[in-house]
């Protein structure tokens, strides 16, 4: 080939764009050529990395105190996905939504780029050297003038060696031990457990129980370690006939309540009287009168608890009664003999040991207000936001001469600090944890630090060098070496353990400092006629999740409202007061007033209103600032003296209509399914008859058709392709021929969703966002060109433009007349139908049926007619209304450094393209490539989709339904299986839903 001059012309496709066959405006789009010009090699090839092949590093998640085990998928030097570690005893491979969002904390665009110091009243960047010299100077000064004894260090609770290092370091500087604080921890239950069993958190064996009664304990949301509890609960419910019956007693039917077979709505704070009445030392009558629960129900519950053995009784201290209720429950469990069977103090969740109660933090705040605290250091906590406004923490902080924050985000507390030494994110730092006895969960960095931050432990060690006592104690050059030395078995045992992320042995843990008395004990109840329940949001936790866009775009699992704050009002009360959803109500308590849109909700007691906690940040980044209102403003700063726990539901409020209307940002169209067969359930006693007589009764065509047709997936498709020698046959069916060499047509990728296991927690939704580069659409800065909704958080979602490829539909059953009702959760995703209605209407083959059973969506071929979404009965196709994936757009969903989180295997869709779930086709192809290069067929259950992998209930199973080695093929034959809209539209979906199993009250008639 001779030397050819470089044709400098413009590529034809570019030419068409620039010519602007349509109009000059489109030329602006064509300018950004997507061509990579340069290839920059490494200087030295990093070892053990193959370009574009992922490495998985085992580590520990620090998003909440449970410290589950994670695998961090790192490729070409950046971690872009966090998945559960299958060998970890706590989460066994599952991962909750907050865990998945850890990656967004790492790449958050609003993180501090380096240390900051206060000049005047602004924080200005500084160098690490100046920052550390300033800190050591202040420490030395505090030590010399004897003020060190009053210093306060509040650290976010984490199990492992860091608290030990921190205490030793503080002691070396003459400062008292630090407060290890977790705002979500149920201090009352922790205290009661310590008094009753000596351990803070015995593990709960749901599987062993016949009956579970929860008094407000939301173990599937934020009460204790939610993922292990959800795994056990789902396994228990999956035993179907032998599954425990679950009764939930509480003022508000939370997500945990929605998974209960029966909800008993009572006034907040009346749980203690109910428990005493049920235990026999109190009359049912006045318990019923005080709690607003009919006496008959209490009587039947008492009778049921007496008969069902072994049972499991749990209670939350968050409502008014606090520690007394927790102690009563522990004694009741002992008296019923549940301890050792369903409540296992022998196998405690040690990661929840050593949590300082809210009262200690409040006491420290009072000391600050009194001026006794010369130095405050804060790491990972945000007391200004989490404590109620009535506690006036900001004024107290003003009285502390020198405040240091180790937080890496500009949250409310850090904004008031004088020195900010941003900590590494958990994914960038070393550490260890003791989740369960005898198991050490190690934490290692998945990548180099994103910004100029340093791990707090290293900062402490370096500052410690200046202090004689500290230098003596910490000879190790950095925290990693120090950890290795402390590890039982030293370096030899540490390295192999690091690979699996788990080691055996127990880490020496710190001794908990004595609990200090909380400030004013008596709860001030306020005048109003409605009692207020403030509950921590399932996604935002104590508000720390608010700066992560996935958690903001995470619909509240029960009310399905997000990017907003709302007040839940009972249905009958709303009718009485003439309120309907969206009317703005002024909720007033002695401490403060908020104007919140109402959400009319059946699952809340008649004279109770509830507000979620976690929104309403005044700073904390672009995703959290000015989104919703802070429920803490309404609460008095009152603590339960017995345990120091903060009283979340301790005030009464008045409700007044303001007359204005704010539309609720929700994905819910109508919450009733009008028996269209979307979410089906059966009672437990119908189970036996399910297999036999129903088989004979009516075998609807395609009703969980137990013969999965490989090849073309439906009788019509098979017949149409001449498989049954009928119509015009193509000369050869190409790859659709089952005996084609590729064997693609022998396969049918399918999925089963077991609704008995699914709890509606939506971890699958966030896992799907993480894997498939799904853009968020609701951030305030994105609402630039949505007509009339400029700057309204969640504006695009008001127009129904959310992009969740898998969504959790929550349908109510019953309860129209105010009686008991049931919630049914259905994860709805693309069904990959055999006769897919969306395929024949696409004019450009952007969607078609692949030989291995996938309904493929080719993003670069899509022209954007959107006919496929019109024709999809399940409405699971989502359209890019704006250029969410185009960096130069105002609606760009991954502002700088957040785009490091993008999965390189999946195309980032531009403007005007339809997108949907394609069963993580990148994982299917990767597995096929790997199998082919290793010369073997794809092994059964070798890989799974992102949602199935993360599901903390193991409800979703994915695989090849045509090959009966895969578990999905076996599950698909289950007699509880049904297809949505199959009888109606003959679409032959590839997703089999297994009916939910209800456990009605034993005496009550079935289906009550």
């Amino acid at each position, binding site marked *: 080939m001779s030397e050819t001059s470089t044709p400098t012309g413009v590529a034809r496709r570019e030419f068409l*764009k620039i010519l602007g*066959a*349509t*109009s*000059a*405006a*489109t030329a602006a*789009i*064509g300018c950004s050529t997507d061509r990579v010009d340069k290839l920059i090699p490494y200087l030295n090839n990093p070892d053990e990395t193959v370009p574009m092949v992922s490495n998985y590093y085992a580590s520990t998640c620090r998003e909440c105190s449970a410290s589950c085990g994670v695998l961090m998928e790192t490729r070409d030097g950046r971690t872009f996905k966090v998945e559960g570690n299958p060998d970890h005893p706590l989460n066994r491979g599952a991962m909750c939504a907050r865990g998945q969002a850890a990656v967004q904390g790492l790449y958050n665009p609003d993180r501090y780029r380096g240390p900051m110091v206060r000049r005047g009243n602004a924080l200005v960047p500084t160098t690490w050297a100046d920052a550390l010299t300033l800190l050591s100077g202040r420490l030395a000064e505090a030590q010399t003038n004897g003020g060190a004894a009053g210093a306060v260090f509040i650290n976010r609770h984490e199990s492992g060696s860091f608290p030990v290092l921190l205490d030793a370091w503080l002691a070396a500087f003459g400062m008292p031990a630090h407060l290890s604080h977790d705002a979500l921890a149920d201090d009352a239950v922790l205290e009661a457990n310590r008094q009753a069993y000596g351990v803070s958190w015995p593990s709960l064996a749901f599987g062993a129980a016949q009956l579970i009664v929860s008094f407000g304990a939301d173990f599937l949301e934020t009460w204790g370690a939610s993922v292990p509890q959800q795994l056990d609960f789902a396994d228990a419910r999956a035993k179907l006939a032998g599954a425990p019956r679950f009764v939930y007693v509480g003022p508000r039917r939370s997500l945990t309540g929605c998974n209960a077979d029966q909800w008993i709505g009572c006034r907040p704070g009346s749980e203690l009287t109910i428990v005493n009445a049920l235990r026999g030392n109190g009359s049912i009558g006045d318990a019923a009168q005080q709690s607003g629960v009919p006496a008959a129900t209490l009587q039947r519950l008492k009778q049921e608890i007496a008969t069902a053995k072994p049972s499991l009784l749990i209670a939350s201290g968050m409502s008014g009664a606090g520690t007394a209720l927790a102690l009563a429950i522990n004694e009741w469990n002992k008296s019923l003999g549940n301890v050792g069977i369903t409540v296992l103090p022998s196998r405690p969740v040690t990661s929840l040991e050593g949590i300082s109660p809210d009262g200690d933090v409040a006491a420290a705040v009072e000391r600050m207000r009194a001026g006794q605290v010369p130095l405050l250091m804060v790491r990972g906590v945000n007391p200004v936001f989490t404590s109620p406004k009535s506690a006036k923490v900001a004024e107290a902080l003003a009285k502390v001469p020198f405040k240091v924050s180790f937080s890496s985000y500009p949250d409310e507390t850090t904004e008031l600090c004088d020195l900010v030494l941003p900590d590494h994110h958990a994914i960038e730092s070393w550490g260890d944890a003791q989740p369960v006895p005898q198991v050490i969960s190690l934490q290692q960095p998945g990548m180099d630090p994103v910004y100029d931050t340093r791990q707090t432990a290293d900062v402490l060690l370096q500052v410690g060098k200046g202090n004689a006592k500290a230098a003596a104690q910490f000879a190790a050059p950095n925290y990693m070496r120090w950890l290795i030395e402390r590890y039982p078995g030293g370096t030899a045992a540490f390295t192999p353990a690091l690979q699996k992320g788990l080691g055996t042995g127990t880490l020496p843990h710190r001794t908990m400092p004595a609990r200090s008395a909380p400030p004013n004990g008596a709860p001030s109840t306020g005048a109003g006629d409605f009692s207020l329940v403030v509950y921590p949001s399932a996604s935002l936790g104590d508000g720390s999740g608010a700066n992560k866009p996935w958690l903001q775009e995470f619909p509240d699992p029960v009310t399905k409202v997000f990017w907003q704050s709302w007040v839940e009002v009972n249905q009958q009360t709303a009718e009485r007061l003439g309120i309907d959803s969206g009317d703005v109500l002024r909720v007033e308590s002695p401490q403060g007033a908020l104007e919140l849109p109402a959400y009319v909700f059946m699952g809340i007691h008649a004279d109770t209103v509830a507000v979620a906690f976690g929104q309403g940040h005044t700073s904390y980044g672009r995703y959290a600032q000015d989104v919703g209102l802070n429920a803490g403003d309404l609460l008095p700063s009152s603590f339960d003296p017995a345990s120091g726990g903060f009283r979340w539901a301790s005030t009464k409020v008045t409700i007044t209509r303001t007359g204005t209307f704010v539309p609720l940002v929700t*994905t*819910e*169209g*109508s*919450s009733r399914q*009008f028996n*269209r067969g*979307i979410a089906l359930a059966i009672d437990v006693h119908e189970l036996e008859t399910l297999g036999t007589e129903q088989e004979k009764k009516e075998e609807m065509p395609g009703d969980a058709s137990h013969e999965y047709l490989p090849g073309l997936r439906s009788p019509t498709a098979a017949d149409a392709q001449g498989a049954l020698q009928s119509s015009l046959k193509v000369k050869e069916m190409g790859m659709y021929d089952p005996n084609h060499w590729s064997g693609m047509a022998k396969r049918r990728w399918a999925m089963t969703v077991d609704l008995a296991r699914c709890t509606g927690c939506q971890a699958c939704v966030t896992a799907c966002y993480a894997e498939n580069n799904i853009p968020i659409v609701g951030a305030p800065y994105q609402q630039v*060109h*949505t*007509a009339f909704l400029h700057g309204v958080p969640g504006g695009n979602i008001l*127009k*129904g*433009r959310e992009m969740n490829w898998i*969504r959790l*539909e929550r*349908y109510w059953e019953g309860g129209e007349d105010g009686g008991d009702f049931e919630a049914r959760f259905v994860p*709805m995703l693309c069904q990959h139908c055999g006769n897919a*209605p969306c395929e*024949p*209407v*696409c*004019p*450009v*083959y952007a969607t*078609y049926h692949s030989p291995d059973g996938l309904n493929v969506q080719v993003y670069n*071929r*899509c*022209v*954007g*007619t*959107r*006919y496929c*979404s*019109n*024709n999809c*009965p*399940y*409405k699971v196709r989502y*359209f*890019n*209304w*704006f*250029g969410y994936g185009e960096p130069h*757009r105002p*609606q760009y969903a991954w502002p700088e450094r957040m785009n490091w989180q993008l999965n390189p295997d999946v195309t980032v869709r531009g*403007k*005007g*393209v339809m997108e949907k779930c394609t069963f993580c086709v990148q994982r299917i192809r990767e597995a096929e490539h790997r199998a082919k290069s290793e010369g073997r067929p794809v092994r059964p259950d070798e890989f799974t989709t992102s949602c199935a992998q993360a599901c903390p209930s193991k409800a979703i199973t994915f695989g090849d339904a045509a090959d009966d080695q895969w578990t999905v093929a076996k599950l698909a034959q289950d007699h509880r299986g049904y297809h949505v809209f199959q009888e*109606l*539209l003959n679409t032959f979906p590839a997703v089999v839903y297994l009916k939910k199993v209800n456990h009605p009250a034993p005496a009550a008639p079935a289906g009550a």
Partner: protein
Amino acid sequence: MATVAPPGREVGPNIPEANIQLPSVRNYRQVTDEIRRTLNPTGMWLAALLAAITCLLIGLGAWMWQVYMGLGVAGYSPPVMWGVYIVTFVFWVGIGHAGTLISAILYLFRAGFRTTIYRCAEAMTVFAIMTAGLFPILHLGRPWKFFWLIPYPNWRLIWPQFKSPLVWDVFAILTYLTVSATFLYIGLLPDFAALRDRERNPLRKHIYGVLSFGWRNSDTEWRHFARAYLFLAAFSTPLVLSVHSTVSFDFAMANVPGWHATLFAPYFVAGAIFSGVGMVFTIIIPIRRWFNLKHYVTLNHLDAAAKLCLFTSLIVGTAYLTEFFIGWYGGSEIEHSFWYNRVFGQWWWAAWIMLTCNTILPLTLFFQKLRRSTTWLFTLSMFINLGMWFERFVIFDPSLSHEFEPWQWTAYAPTYVDWCILLGSFGWFAMWFLLFIKNFPVVPISEVKEIIPPLLRVPRAVEGIEVTGMHLEYEPETPGERD
């Protein structure tokens, strides 16, 4: 000066089947003069043209903004994925069909009353289809890739998918545009020759000369012309039915409740002809008054067209009732809840606008006095256009917003971008139509000459019709108001 025929007496022209009163025109010279007089631009016409162009620019600006920023600026709220643009697309395609009906189908039926109004109708067809053709491109997510719908050989070796109604649409609309434009142009050939020969301004004379392809009015040309015109009319007739059936297949092929009915093809065609006749009134009545063509487009013509409008309105009315009946008779809960939501629920206002405008108001055409009153016909045609736009709106958006999956029920509200582009489409149509009426003859010169009796030396019956006093000279003063 004796008039052609005393008013009131039915005098048939030389086309026996035309039972309509002859337009009070005396002879060929008068036809040519009066129609040529409509061609000189007036101030009001220029103002109207400028108004149309500003509307077009508003629409174009809105569309460029939408292409640049994304479809999100429009009012789409999924699952309502098709909104105002597709409604306007079907609205304009529908309007086009009446033009072909009047020019082609009535030509095959030898209906005399078509002659003077068919040129306006046919021009309306071509411009309506040109407007409609924009919308399938304009509502795309990636409009700069619209050419993927056309089967052209490409280096990616991948072709459009012919089972999709949208590809049928591409073929149907392009064919319909080509055939009706050709049909219009062939009809205009003799008129260009007539204008070319009488034109004094050299530039316009040259242009008309070129446009007339050198037509010489010779007998061989007329013979082939008659045949070609007949075949084009023959092709246009089934084409009308197939094009709007294909457009209705865009919806009938989907399994959306409310769309999925076999009634859709005839229902859409009837609706199309009805809305087209409505638009013909909207156009012909003002032209008739401002261009002094009252004696060409006489009240008899409007009366006959009004009867056609009434007839199609009754068909559309029965179609609505059949749709409701199917929904009820089908017995599926999804259809019931959908229909209740459309007529009495969330979308009751749109459904009742449709019903009043399309079925109740046109019933007034049963009264001959109203049929012959041009002001009522004009206002009724405005209602018909509005009603037919809402009929498409009611078919598409309520169906999408209230479908199988209750979780995805939603509301739909267009935004300013939608309305601007709708306004732009009217601007585009009006611009082309205004340009047409001032440069091309609005009433066909040769066909009018064909139906009025020729100049005879010896007055005698022409085909059994006694024609009296036909040989009189014509003085080119403006004829008085005939009716």
